[in-house]
């Protein structure tokens, strides 16, 4: 199982439940599920609401705005294909709607800061559009 050469970046392993999330990203829309019983936003996509066990979930477009909760500048990647791109920054962001997600940060290392405001940046990798985040533009 030694690392194979020319291995490609790992694609998301999409399920029928998460399919709308990835489809909407292709339209440059970040959409999350919202529970119709308790009104909470949910990430990652699920069959039910983990807060109240409601099963009536609808997809709604999110703002794409978030704040940085944590980050790491990766020097030694856990996946061989990502090693070629080191150093790079991954982070956990808290979306304005509530949920947290892991993401890739297009933020200069010197500008990384706790609670820094960021916004979505749609990045196409291996025919999939991934929600990366970049410094928030001035409105």
């Amino acid at each position, binding site marked *: *199982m*030694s*690392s194979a050469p020319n291995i490609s*970046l*790992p*694609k*998301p*392993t*999409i*399920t029928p439940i*998460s399919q709308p999330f990835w489809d909407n990203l292709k339209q440059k829309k970040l959409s999350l599920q919202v529970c119709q019983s308790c009104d909470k936003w949910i990430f*990652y996509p699920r069959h039910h609401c983990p807060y109240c066990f409601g099963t009536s979930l609808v997809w709604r477009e999110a703002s794409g705005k978030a704040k940085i*909760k*944590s*980050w*790491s*500048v*990766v*020097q*030694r*990647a*856990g*996946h061989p294909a*990502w090693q070629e*791109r080191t*150093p*790079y920054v*991954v*982070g*956990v962001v808290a979306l304005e709607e509530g949920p*947290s*997600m*892991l*993401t*890739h940060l297009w933020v200069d290392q010197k500008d990384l800061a*706790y609670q820094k405001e960021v916004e979505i940046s749609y990045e196409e*990798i291996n025919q*999939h559009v*991934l929600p*990366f985040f970049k410094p928030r533009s001035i409105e």
Partner: protein
Amino acid sequence: MTKRPKGAIIGVGELKPTRYSEGKTTLSLLTEAALLAIKDAGISKEDIDGLLVGPQVGETPQHVPATVSEYIGLEPTMSNTVDLGGATGAGMVWRAAAAIEAGMCETVLCVLANKNEKGEALRSPNRNPIREFDVPFGASGANTSYALLKRQHMEVYGSKQEDFAQIAYWARKNAQLNPNAIFYGKPLEVEDILNSPIISDPLHLLEIVMPVAGGAAVIVTSEEKAKKAKNKPVYLKGAGEKITHRAVSQAPAIDALPFGYCIPHALKQAEIAISDIDLLSLYDCYTSVVAVTLESTGLCKPGEFGDFVQKHSFGHDGDYPLNTHGGQLGFGQADLAGGMSHVIEAVIQLRGEAANRQIAHAKRALVTGNGATLSETTALVLGGEQ
């Protein structure tokens, strides 16, 4: 009296970690560790009627208890796979006691081992949802997850690199008194840790456990049977467990991690306070885990481990003996067997058999286990008296 699982550890077996397994299989290492524990307990294989094993991802994905039973040569009346990552070892001990109390068996072999072949990639085959929502962004593996945890701690509380380095320093220092430790004879200074390469900022190489080959087993039996045991029994006095998430992005807030539940639960079952503990045997795959574990014990407040580790000493003769075997940071991590090393050191100390690293008057130990990224947590209170 508080309801709790009752049982006692009467035998332990631990293989000296080696960097690579050189021709051994996980099943053969499991057997080696099991036979050591059976011998230590002074029992025969016919006495074993319970078996707890860990998952062996990629090698024996299913039917693990049957495969291990058959290979070792056991016919248990209770068996199961315990799948709690680094909390598996501690999680096995209370499950064994619970199964004994339920009348399903009387003497349980809890065994973990792992081979480590040179050139073999250590990446585990992550499954959904972490595979779908973390890996494509460049976050594979534990190093990045624990880097994110450490960064959050530093940002929220202002903890410093020097504070985390103290934890690795003491682990390595304590390992100098354990000839079985992978880093025996290789002491480190704080500066060495701070100057080691950054793997995933802010995490240094020397804050991360070394993957090794090895194995560990303990034998848990009823309190009644333990009274007739060859060794001084080590009793399970209390246990606590909590699982909150899998992926680091879905973790609770840094002051609401699951050790905050399971450590007080274990102390409550044991009807003691943290000040009654003589040995802290705390799971330490990364320095940051010990930091937040200490903050969950009540010895220091959330965010204040830095002051605590700078003010105290953590050797066997220190004011807070911590991981006197070197911890996994000093001893090596044979995958899930690494977590069991914290149980085994507690047993050795409570028996009074720790030789040159023996804690004076050791009566009670707090043992913790941690899986994924502070996701699966278990705490045990072990005591030398019933």
